[in-house]
């Protein structure tokens, strides 16, 4: 993975010193809260309901065991012993003291981590397919380009005060695991007829109060033009994006109001002006970054493992975990493991300091020291030899880290909601907990099959409810929590925005309501092979409406 060079190290160290000084000036009264707030936000520090919250960037969701151990150490030393992995592939600490944050940032810098640009109206952490570098269907490793974009976007002076925040996602395969069509810019790696690598470029996707699917602005962009083209998009957005109304300030509104054809002309004109300038990416520069993501020295193994087959036959729980939480790896004899942070009744995405330590140990011992955080709030061990899967499973199970539910109905995305977040209108986590308990029976869960529930505690949609197969949005109705159900959302290569199915449900009613939707699916599906989403797209809302309100 990418290692800091001298510039990166000096820059992060200088930024820590600068923020330490800013905190001291705030505490001494030299800076007012109005002056300090934008400075702390630029360093990932929010003030939430109970305390400050620190959001630490995990670039494109990739980290090593040393970094995961540091996150556990920070949880243990400065917080309440846990952290929350987010839909942005980052981690949030919910209880740090402002006076401790400079020390936390200093400790993070020792493992090449920081919180810069994890908030504010700037280009945020670039996200990527969590199976990057190991997926069998991958065209190229998206982390290489995500890293190039990270370097370009870090304190880019022109784009530090954009009309609004800006999120870029990138996938290396045709099957989109990075939700690129609901990002400000979505990049899909592809090859042209000559076999050259480039990108399909999508612009103007997003969730929040106005969900929109990104529009294709370029079908094939050569890789050498990546930075020039992205810079051209940002320039057009910076120039024309609205600054008078924060709810209309994202690029998706500009795309919607201007029209993609008009905007494309502006982007292409700016691109033509700058394309052969300093932002042109020479092959050698791409290769230099690519070298940081060189494949580990995978053992030469047969694809089948006799030890694994014996363990699978003898242990049904392990067999279930294998079926749901492991995926095919590029290298024969290896597997990609999803560590589910979604135990029945647990808060989605949370991991304790001890669990982080255990995960770091497993990465070091069994996964070439690599880990990924998925936007679905799970942790990935990308390179596990099949013969070691049972040992990994046993170690995970001992720490309640082996729910066999990746991609199933209890693998729920949920934002922190009103239990933590100052913006939320309703709680998300307790709903996720109750749903995961309701559907905890493994046989029933497998009978239901692939079904993604996503829950947000407010219209900002951090819990991605718009793209949940079943989406749940918490609202405040005259002081009471209510939950609105949307159906048919999806964040893959066939992205769709979920449709509101009808009036909302109270806290007491919402779990049963989801149960009715699931029952209706089971009754109406053609067969077990027809997923919930496929059935919904075939049937439309009616049978589900009937089940809920009939």
């Amino acid at each position, binding site marked *: 993975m990418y290692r800091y060079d001298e510039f990166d190290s000096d820059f992060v160290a200088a930024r820590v010193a600068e923020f330490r000084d800013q905190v001291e000036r*705030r505490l001494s009264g030299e800076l007012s809260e109005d002056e300090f707030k934008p400075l702390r936000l630029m360093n990932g520090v929010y003030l939430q309901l109970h305390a400050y919250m620190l959001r630490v960037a995990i670039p494109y969701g990739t980290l090593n065991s040393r970094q995961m151990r540091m996150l556990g150490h920070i949880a243990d030393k400065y917080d309440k012993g846990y952290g929350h992995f987010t839909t942005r592939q980052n981690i949030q600490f919910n209880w740090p003291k402002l006076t401790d944050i400079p020390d936390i940032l200093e400790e993070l810098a020792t493992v090449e981590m920081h919180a810069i640009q994890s908030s504010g109206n700037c280009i945020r952490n670039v996200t990527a397919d969590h199976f990057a570098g190991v997926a069998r269907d991958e065209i190229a490793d998206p982390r290489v380009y995500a890293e190039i974009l990270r370097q370009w976007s870090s304190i880019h002076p022109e784009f530090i005060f954009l009309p609004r925040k800006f999120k870029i996602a990138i996938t290396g395969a045709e099957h989109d695991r990075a939700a690129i069509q609901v990002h400000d810019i979505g990049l899909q790696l592809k090859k042209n007829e000559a076999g050259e690598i480039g990108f399909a470029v999508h612009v103007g996707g997003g969730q929040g109060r106005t969900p929109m699917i990104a529009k294709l602005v370029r079908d094939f962009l050569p890789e050498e033009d990546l930075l020039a083209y992205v810079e051209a998009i940002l320039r057009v957005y910076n120039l024309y994006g609205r600054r008078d109304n924060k709810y209309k300030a994202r690029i998706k509104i500009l795309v919607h109001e201007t029209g993609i054809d008009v905007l494309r002309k502006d982007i292409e004109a700016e691109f033509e002006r700058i394309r052969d300038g300093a932002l042109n990416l020479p092959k050698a520069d791409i290769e230099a970054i690519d070298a940081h993501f060189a494949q580990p020295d995978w053992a030469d193994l047969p694809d089948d493992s006799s030890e694994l087959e014996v363990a699978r036959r003898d242990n049904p729980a392990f067999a279930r975990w294998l079926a749901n939480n492991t995926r095919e790896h590029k290298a024969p004899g290896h597997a990609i493991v999803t560590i589910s942070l979604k135990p029945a009744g647990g808060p989605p995405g949370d991991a*304790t300091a001890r669990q982080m330590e255990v995960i770091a140990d497993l990465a070091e011992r069994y996964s070439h020291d690599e880990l990924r955080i998925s936007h679905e709030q799970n942790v990935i061990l990308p390179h596990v030899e099949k013969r070691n899967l049972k040992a990994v499973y046993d170690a995970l199970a001992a720490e309640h880290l082996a729910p066999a539910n990746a991609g199933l109905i209890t693998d729920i995305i949920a934002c922190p909601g009103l239990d933590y977040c100052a913006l939320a209108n309703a709680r998300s986590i307790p709903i996720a907990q109750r749903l995961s308990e309701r559907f905890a029976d493994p046989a029933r869960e497998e009978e239901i099959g692939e079904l993604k529930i996503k829950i947000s505690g407010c219209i900002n949609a951090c819990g991605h409810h718009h793209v949940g197969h079943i989406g749940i949005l918490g609202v405040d109705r005259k002081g009471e929590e209510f939950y609105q159900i949307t159906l048919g959302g999806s964040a893959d290569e066939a992205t769709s925005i979920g449709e509101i199915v009808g009036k909302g449900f109270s806290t007491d009613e919402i779990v049963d309501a989801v149960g009715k939707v699931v029952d209706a699916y089971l009754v109406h599906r053609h067969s077990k092979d027809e997923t919930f989403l496929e059935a919904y797209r075939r049937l439309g809302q009616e049978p589900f409406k009937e089940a809920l309100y009939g």
Partner: protein
Amino acid sequence: MKIITANRLSDGAVVYLAAEGWLTEITHAAVLNAHDAIEAGLAAAARAVANREIVDTAAIDVTVEDKGPVPVRLRERIRAFGPTIAFGETARAALAA
């Protein structure tokens, strides 16, 4: 009936205006009825902001029950009594049980 709340500047903790100053326990919060008393409470909060003790001040509605003031809004009840869910090692221990 209202009480005055804020977050402490140094650590973000939720605090309430009490006779003894800014305290973390809502049970000690001064319950204010009269308009003048609420205005005086907000003025005290403004002084504490200027003195760099607190940020994000608000007067919130409460009812008074046996154990003391209880916020009317769920958001403020969660601020006062903490997340409604177990977290960290407590949540992990609950899974083991």
